[in-house]
Every structure is written in structure tokens, then in C-alpha cells.
């Protein structure tokens, strides 16, 4: 379960998240929607442990434990995963080398034994096959020269291998072709489990047709301005954000 309580975040004195409250229960898929620049990616980065932001007040709890003073890798080991809106290219690091290092680092933190190379390869091959990721891509440097959609699929592969207890998908659907969208959605649905929560950030109803959310939240100007069921996404698709975009009334 992820709980964000009264979170206020700023950068250089500019407020980006404003008294933000959000709870996503185990087994729940929550969709987060909202206009460009409303703070969705900022929220995902702050949850994952990015240091450029100042957390002024509030707390972020994963399964009841505060994440705020933990390094990003420790948060990951505690079960958090973030699929980036823009996955980062890492020149010179072969994708397989990286996957193995990441998987074993987390296993080590969790007190599990390192995977043997054959075990590791078996897992990668199974997951990569489902996501239509080629062996050639796995041998190339991580994300370097990958197409936009390939990068997104690579992030989902990492999620499948790392088996987080809570995953944030930041616009994983943008840049995906229709087939890839279905493949990625199947990948996410396969991971849906009673003990695992998802925060799915998206602009489009289309992804939510495949990954049907339990709740939908609308974010504007750094706060959650409306929450509802899956029908809220349909309504937004029709009406847009005009109801939410206005500057807050000056008191």
C-alpha cells in the first residue's frame, strides 16, 4: 500500500506539489490523470527518491514505512518500482549486464542468494519473449538507440523481473503502437496481484481499456482535485481538463 500524506514539494522556492494526499491499496490499480505540467512526474520522482526536490512537509509511506529518508535503491529493495516517462540511455552498459546487476543487488538487499547465470537467463528469456523484446536488444547498451516504444517495453521487462510490490507507470503508454500497447498492458495485467498496487499515470483512456483501473484521480496544479471510479476517465476523455485548469481562486 502506498500512502502520500499532505505532501508539499518545491524546487528553488517554486511549489510543485501542494498538500497532496493519495492512497493506493494493495491489489488496487489507480489511474492518475491531469494536464501537462500538473506535477504527475514530479510526484513519481519524489516517491522514487529523486534528490533535486525539497520535501517541505508531509510523508510517503510504502506498506506503512516512511520512504523519505531512504536512498532510491533502498526504496527499490523495499518493493518500489518506477517506469520512467523518459527511460534513460546508459551508453556502454549492456542491457543484460545491467539487468543482472539490478536483480542481484535487490536480492542481496532482501537477503536472497544471487541468481546463477542460467537461472537469470531463463527468467529474462521468458519475460522478454512475452514483451517481444529481441535477444539483440538485450545485448545492446541499455536503451541506447532504442525506439521510444522499445524503451517503454524495456522498463516493463525490468518491472517483471524485479517483481515490485508497488509500481508507478509514468505514461508507459505514450509512444507505443497499438500492438505494443496491448503487449505492455498484458504484461501489467499479468502482474496484477492482491499484494501489489499500481499507480498508472496516463493521458489516454485507451490504456485504461486494457488495464482497467479501480480508481481514477485527477491532478491539477500539484494536487488531487477529483477522484472517482473508472467512469471518471471516460468523462475526462470527453470533456478534457477545462474544469480543472483554472487558477485557484484567490481567497
Amino acid at each position: 500500500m502506498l500512502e502520500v500524506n499532505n505532501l508539499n514539494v518545491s524546487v528553488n522556492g517554486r511549489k510543485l506539489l501542494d498538500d497532496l494526499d493519495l492512497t493506493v491499496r494493495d491489489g488496487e490499480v489507480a489511474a492518475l490523470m491531469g494536464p501537462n505540467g500538473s506535477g504527475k512526474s514530479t510526484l513519481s520522482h519524489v516517491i522514487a527518491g529523486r534528490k533535486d526536490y525539497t520535501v517541505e512537509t508531509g510523508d510517503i509511506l510504502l506498506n506503512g514505512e516512511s520512504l523519505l529518508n531512504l536512498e532510491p535503491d533502498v526504496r527499490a529493495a523495499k518493493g518500489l518500482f518506477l517506469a520512467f516517462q523518459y527511460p534513460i540511455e546508459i551508453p556502454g552498459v549492456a542491457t543484460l549486464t545491467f539487468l543482472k546487476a539490478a536483480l542481484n543487488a535487490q536480492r542481496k538487499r532482501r537477503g536472497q542468494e544471487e541468481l546463477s547465470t542460467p537461472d537469470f537467463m531463463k527468467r529474462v528469456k521468458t519475460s522478454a519473449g512475452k514483451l517481444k523484446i529481441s535477444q539483440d536488444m538485450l545485448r545492446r547498451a541499455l536503451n541506447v538507440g532504442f525506439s521510444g516504444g522499445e524503451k517503454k517495453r524495456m522498463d516493463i521487462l525490468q518491472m517483471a523481473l524485479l517483481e515490485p510490490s508497488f509500481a508507478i507507470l509514468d505514461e508507459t503508454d505514450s509512444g507505443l503502437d497499438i500492438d505494443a500497447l496491448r503487449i505492455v498492458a498484458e504484461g501489467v495485467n499479468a502482474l496484477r496481484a492482491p499484494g501489489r498496487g499500481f499507480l498508472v499515470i496516463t493521458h489516454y483512456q485507451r490504456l485504461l481499456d486494457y488495464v482497467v483501473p479501480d480508481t481514477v484521480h485527477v491532478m491539477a496544479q500539484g494536487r488531487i482535485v477529483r477522484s472517482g471510479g473508472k467512469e471518471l476517465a471516460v468523462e475526462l476523455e470527453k470533456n478534457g481538463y477545462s474544469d480543472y485548469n483554472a487558477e485557484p481562486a484567490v481567497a
Partner: protein
Amino acid sequence: MSAEIIHARTPAELSLANAFDGSKARLPGNAAVAKWREDSFKIFSASGLPHRRVEAWHYTDLRALMRDALPVATPPDAMAIDALRKNFAAADAPGQRLVLADGFFVPELSGGLPAGIKVRSLASVLSEGRSDLIALLSSQDLAAGDSMVALNAALMQDGVVIEVAPGTVVEKPLNLIHATASQISSAHFSRSALIVGAGASIRLAEWGHAANRAGTVQASQANACLIVSLGDGARLAHTAMVTGTAANSVRLETMMARIGAGAKFDSFALVSGIGLVRRQIFLRFEGDGSQASLSGVSLLGGREHADTTLQVEHAAQGCMGRETFKYILDEEATGVFQGKIHVAPGAQKTDGKMLCKAVLLSDMAAMNNKPELEIFADDVACGHGATCGGLDIDQLFYLQTRGLPLPEAEALLLEAFASELIGGIGHAGLIHDFSGKVKAWLSSRHSWRIPDRSQA
């Protein structure tokens, strides 16, 4: 600049003058060589140790950094040679090798040379006085005016002269091992030459080996010159592992290379774990249509100082030069890269590119970068670039969110940064050795510098 700056001699300069006066009668060579030594010493003493007002040495102020000169080494005795033999056996040193101990060629420890390669000590070549070899050894015009190269000519004690017969092709590396053998800290002056005949193809791998009888490493001051001559159509793949000298050591290496027509020369060096090192490479394309690639990685911590100074002269048409150097600087280390590409009038179709990339891991580390292009021909493609900064925070964050602790994330990025050039060595065994050194450096850096955060 005024030539009239008169400075008080430093203790180091005084002891070098005494060393020359005291040893010149015993230094190897015929009368002509003795004259050359005298002339060279005059050049050295006119300017003294190079300092920051000498443009080429601005960032490596040897006068300030080297206050004292160590006593000049004596040839290794039987015990020292025996200790080295045991050392090599234990370290499984490669067979096809030439050994210089404190700058002196040790035939007993050398051997396994393939047909077509002739090797003699510098001392015997200087005494024999074969004019073509003496001419080659003394042609310092590539490094004209460099007082440390002049000092090397004055005091050179020994070295190896390697002649590769035209057409000889040897796949396995010929290993040249620079061993520190003396029990006491000493200065070494060596000069070696590698003459690769037309159409010949060889690989020269230079190694540092710094462990003496007691198993401890003595500080040393080495001034080594390597003169390379590549005949038409010849190929030379060169690597240098410039590592493992004691903390207060000074190591000056000068390579002077002349490249014939249609030849190919690749050189890679790893510099790490040396007090102060300066590598100078003076390269001249003398024949048309040749290629040279000079590259290197310096991994520095503590107060280490590593300087790479290049001068690549295009004196022929259609030659391609690639100079790519990378630095990783931690703690209070200093890196220096100076690279000059000179394109002579008429050297049309020159293709020259120079690149220096530095990663600084500490606020106290410093990188000095000075690229220069001097172009006197109009139909050329030349350029240079330089980057300097910390590791990319977006990349670090991405890796951390995947579970890699910061030190591991850094090591992964640094290894990728350094390894890019190692892949270009093109020899599996050597790639393995150099990659291993990089990994070892990165893991030692983390084991004692970055606190374990697993308790977090």
C-alpha cells in the same frame, strides 16, 4: 618570453649536474655519443627542469613538483635479477618478453623472441656506433627543445633496440617489462628504439613491474624514451600499462614516432597508481595514406598527477589521426591533457580528430585541458572536443531506482566510460588484463572510500 631568466638551481638540478659530471666517463657510447651527451646536457642545464613558464609544461611544473633528484641507478646485481626471476615466475609473466630492470636491459630474464626480431641493448648499440642506428636514436627533432628529452640523452644508461625485419608478422604480443629492482629509491634513464621494417606487423605491450626483493615498492624517478620508426605498410599495435609505482614516484615517458606511408599505428595506455606521470607522444606522419590512433585512460586518486601531452604532425597527405583520452579523477588528483594537431602546408586530405573526456568525482580533483590545432593546408578535416564534469545524475538516479546502490551505479557508469577505449585494443588477452585493472581500481575505490549504505 625572455630567455634571460636566471634562476637559482634547485637541489634536484644540482644533483643532476653532479650525476652527469660524476658518471659521464662511464656512460656507454663512443666518442661521438659522448659529444652528443655533452651537448644534450648543455641544453638541459640552460633551461633546467621545466616549470610553469615553459608553455609545454605549464600544468606540470616539474621544478616545483620534483624538488630532489634521486641517485642514478646502478645495474641490477645478481640477487636483484634472481628476485625478479622468482617474481615473474610467481606472477606468470608472459614468455615473449624483454626486461628492463631500473632501465637496464637484462638478457637473462628476456627471451622467447620469434624469428625476424633482433634485439640488442642500447649500451652495445651506442658502443658499436652503427651510424644509422645512432642517427635514429639521436634524432630528437620531434621533441626539439624539450629539456627532459635532452636530459635523457645525456644520462641514458641503457635500453633495448628492437629491429623487426621487413615483412615479419608476429601475432603474439612482444612484452617489454619495465621493472623496478633496486632496494633503494633511484633514478632511471633509459632509451629504447623499435624499428618496424616495411610490411612488418607486430604488437608491443609495455608493462610496469614494481616489486623488489623485499616485496615493497621503492619510489623511483624514471625518464624513458621510446623511439618508434614504422616503415611503409608496417603495422604496430602498442599498449602500455603505466601502473603500480610507489606514491612519490615520477615517471616521464616520451615516445617519438615516425610513420611511413600506408602504415597503421595504434597505441593505448592505462595510467593509474603513479605519483606523477607525464606521457609525451610526438608523432609525425612522414608518408601518405597512414593511420594512427592514440588513446588512453587515466584513473587517478589521492594526489596523483597524470599528464598526457601529444603532438601529432601531419607532414604527408591523406593521413588519419585519432587521439582519444579519458580521465577519471577522484580525491585531489590532477589530470592534464594537451594535444596539438599540426598540419603542414601540402598535407592535404588530412583527417585529424582529437577528444578528451574527463569525469571528476570530487570537488578537489582538477582537469586541465589544452587542445590546439595548427593548420597550414586547406583541404583538411580536423577537429577537437573536450568534456569535463561529474557523472550524469539522471543516469545515476535511473540505476539507483533499479536497486543499484550509489557506489555500484557509479562503478557501472565509470566502467562503461573507461572500457569504451579498451575494446579497441583488439587482442582478447590484453583486453582482459586492462579491463581487470579498471575493475580492480573501481572496486578498491569503493571498498575504502564510500561507506556501505546497506544498513540504511
